[in-house]
């Protein structure tokens, strides 16, 4: 009886989920409520977690709860500490959830709500969650080794090097594109610039508080910081109202880009306790708080989605970025569906805390499900806006025209009516001078969030909500920026240390300054080009980031598939093999189109040639002609980088296939690097506190 009841509940969930997905997918022309999305997401997650994840854990990975984890065996009270599963879940989720799942779905909403939503749901349950969980499992069985180390041990030197280069490359491009998102959010917005700048001294105050004033009082210091952040949102509004003060914070994109670079450099060489650590605390609280608030507001309000299911831009003519639905929706939404970066966290800190293998499903698979849900909410925040408004905010001036009148005419001609008055009213409600061509996703997400929060918690404070949302995005983008620059610096020092050991010393100041400078110059270059590009830069950088992130995911899945085959589990290798095949397909197709397409909005080389021809013919306006040579060089560079990524990807795929076929043919391969079984001594519900 009990079993029957359980089964019928799951049948009910399956039916409800199918109805919700069907409703979302088949609905045409009628407006659809966001509640359908939430229902579809929750049902799919529940079923995937209950059945697919449980099956993978029990049968494919054969997790063994009697086996001691690295946290237990190597417990040192510092980084290896057996920890309660909810605490590990909290740490893991805070580490994997960054700005990616907010920006990607916002950009991909140009195809309509349907493609992005389906990819976020199915990509996560079949790809992203599997990748995170399997990587966490493999690292747990290998003394919490990193992805690069596992690739080297299990596949060979090529795999290890590819993982290292992939990580470094993705870091550079990720920071550049996130920097661009922040710059575009602050451009000519004194309020946003003042608030975002204030987060730096606030982080320092918090850092000093917990280092010197009240050492170790993390929560006290953080509470102080969160209060100061909220005050800075209001203070920004006050500055914006003051005619003299506001000019101090009113900058061109390029000036702001230089400031962001200077900040990144300073953050990489300053001690962590002063800026990076306190900023990370603040961004984690603000992030968790805001995401919860957004979920509550959406559930309370149940706004209606105004974007159609599919737009005409699936044919590749979209204003935000060029390229057809396939493969570009899968490249644009990386985090939220599948993100290679997670494999670095799942093979880094998390396995050092895991007290029992049985929690791998909840932390690896469950953590990614929650991130996927964040992406669904970002998709909703983008699609509850009037499509005309959404496109007016996100379309670069190079596509729709610099003048407001031209832009609204062009956007209305696509069938998404919008007027100058409407945009002006919205901008003044949000406390901004203009919302036209505010590319990068952050402003439109902030408008979406502000309208949701405003309707749920009070319409009168729209401008405050908008700038709160901008602060929320900026604070953790800047955290990723400093943390990434620092990690890049360590990696570079490690690599250069092979050439000249002195450079590898992480505390030798000249080396610190040199390598930090090189890393900042790396991402600063792409940020600079992104800012001077009249088409907005996001158009170029985001696909490059997507390709890099999916390439890293493919490397993680290659390692996983190789290990499954070597463990004699060939019949289950499809669990990671299928998402791998899909990733290789989309990454290669996207890379091929970015390299070879003769459409100037997609192909890097054709865009470079087109620009060079126009420059030679004198057909460019003077301000565009001045930057054209740099843009042409950059387009060539981007083309070569894409080619490099895709070559690296295929090298590692072939390396994995080589190892697998040797194993299957009975030839010698590198042995499994799994650490030997030792029984766990921790009792059932044991928790360290």
């Amino acid at each position, binding site marked *: 009886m009990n079993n029957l009841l359980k089964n019928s509940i799951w049948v009910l969930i399956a039916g409800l989920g199918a109805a919700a997905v069907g409703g979302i997918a088949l609905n045409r022309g009628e407006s659809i409520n966001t509640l359908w999305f939430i229902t579809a997401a929750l049902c799919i997650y529940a079923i995937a977690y209950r059945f697919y994840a449980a099956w993978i854990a029990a049968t494919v990975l054969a997790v063994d709860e009697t086996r001691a984890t690295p946290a237990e065996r190597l417990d040192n009270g510092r980084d290896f500490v057996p920890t309660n599963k909810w605490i590990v879940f909290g740490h893991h989720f805070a580490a994997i959830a960054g700005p990616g799942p907010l920006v990607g779905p916002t950009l991909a909403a140009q195809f309509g709500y349907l493609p992005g939503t389906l990819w976020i749901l199915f990509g996560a349950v079949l790809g992203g969650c599997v990748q995170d969980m399997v990587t966490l499992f493999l690292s747990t069985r290998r003394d919490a080794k990193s992805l690069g180390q596992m690739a080297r041990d299990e596949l060979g030197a090529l795999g290890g090097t590819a993982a290292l280069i992939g990580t470094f490359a993705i870091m550079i491009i990720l920071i550049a594109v996130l920097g661009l998102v922040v710059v575009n959010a602050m451009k000519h917005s004194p309020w946003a610039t003042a608030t975002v700048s204030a987060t730096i001294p606030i982080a320092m105050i918090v850092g000093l508080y917990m280092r010197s004033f009240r*050492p170790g009082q*993390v929560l006290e210091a953080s509470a102080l910081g969160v209060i100061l952040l909220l005050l800075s949102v209001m203070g920004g509004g006050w500055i914006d109202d003051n005619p003299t003060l506001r000019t101090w914070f009113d900058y061109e994109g390029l000036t702001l880009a230089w400031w962001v670079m200077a900040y990144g450099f300073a953050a990489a060489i300053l001690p962590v306790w002063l800026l990076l*650590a306190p900023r990370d605390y603040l961004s984690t609280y603000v992030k968790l708080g805001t995401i919860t608030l957004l979920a509550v507001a959406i559930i309370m309000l149940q706004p209606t989605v105004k974007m159609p299911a599919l737009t005409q831009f699936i044919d590749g003519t979209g204003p935000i970025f060029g390229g057809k639905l396939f493969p570009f929706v899968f490249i644009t939404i990386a985090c939220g569906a599948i993100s290679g970066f997670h494999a670095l966290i799942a093979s880094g800190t998390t396995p050092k805390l895991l007290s029992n293998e049985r929690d791998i499903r909840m932390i690896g698979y469950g953590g990614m499900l929650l991130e996927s849900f964040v992406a669904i909410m970002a998709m909703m925040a983008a699609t509850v806006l009037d499509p005309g408004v959404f496109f007016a905010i996100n379309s670069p001036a190079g596509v729709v025209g610099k003048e407001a009148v031209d832009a609204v005419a062009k956007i209305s001609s696509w069938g998404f009516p919008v007027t100058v008055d409407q945009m002006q009213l919205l901008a003044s409600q949000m406390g901004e001078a203009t919302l036209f061509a505010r590319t990068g996703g952050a402003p439109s997400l902030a408008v979406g969030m502000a309208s949701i929060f405003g309707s749920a918690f009070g319409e009168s404070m729209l401008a405050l909500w908008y700038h709160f949302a901008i602060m929320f995005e900026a604070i953790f983008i800047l955290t990723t920026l400093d943390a990434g620059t*620092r990690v890049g610096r360590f990696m570079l020092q490690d690599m250069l240390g092979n050439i000249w050991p002195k450079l590898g010393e992480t505390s030798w100041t000249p080396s610190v300054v040199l390598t930090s400078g090189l890393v900042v110059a790396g991402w600063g270059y792409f940020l600079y080009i992104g800012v001077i590009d009249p088409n907005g830069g996001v158009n170029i950088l985001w696909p490059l980031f997507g390709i890099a992130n999916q390439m890293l995911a493919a490397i993680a899945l290659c390692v996983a598939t190789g290990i499954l085959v070597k463990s004699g589990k060939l019949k289950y290798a499809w669990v990671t093999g299928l998402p791998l095949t899909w990733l290789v397909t989309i990454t290669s197709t996207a890379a091929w189109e970015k390299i070879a397409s003769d459409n100037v909005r997609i192909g890097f080389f054709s865009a470079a040639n087109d620009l060079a021809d126009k420059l030679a013919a004198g057909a460019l306006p003077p301000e565009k002609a001045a930057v054209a040579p740099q843009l042409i060089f950059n387009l060539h560079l981007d083309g070569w980088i894409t080619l490099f990524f895709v070559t690296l990807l295929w090298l590692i795929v072939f390396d994995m296939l080589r190892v697998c076929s040797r194993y299957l043919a009975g030839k010698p391969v590198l042995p499994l690097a799994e650490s030997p079984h030792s029984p766990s001594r921790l009792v059932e519900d044991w928790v360290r*506190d």
Partner: protein
Amino acid sequence: MLGKFKEFWRVVRRLSGDDAYERYLQHHAEHHQADTPLSKEAFFKQWQDEKWNGVKRCC
């Protein structure tokens, strides 16, 4: 109700690292009774520097 709140507060302290020093003292008492433990200030410095080595944040 109060128990629930206490439990929640414990989780918050644990997640944020607010109780890191208490946990260190406990670990120290269990495993290294011979030497004197670090002061709260010295421990916190070390803890913070260690925590920030390596990839900590994602996109």
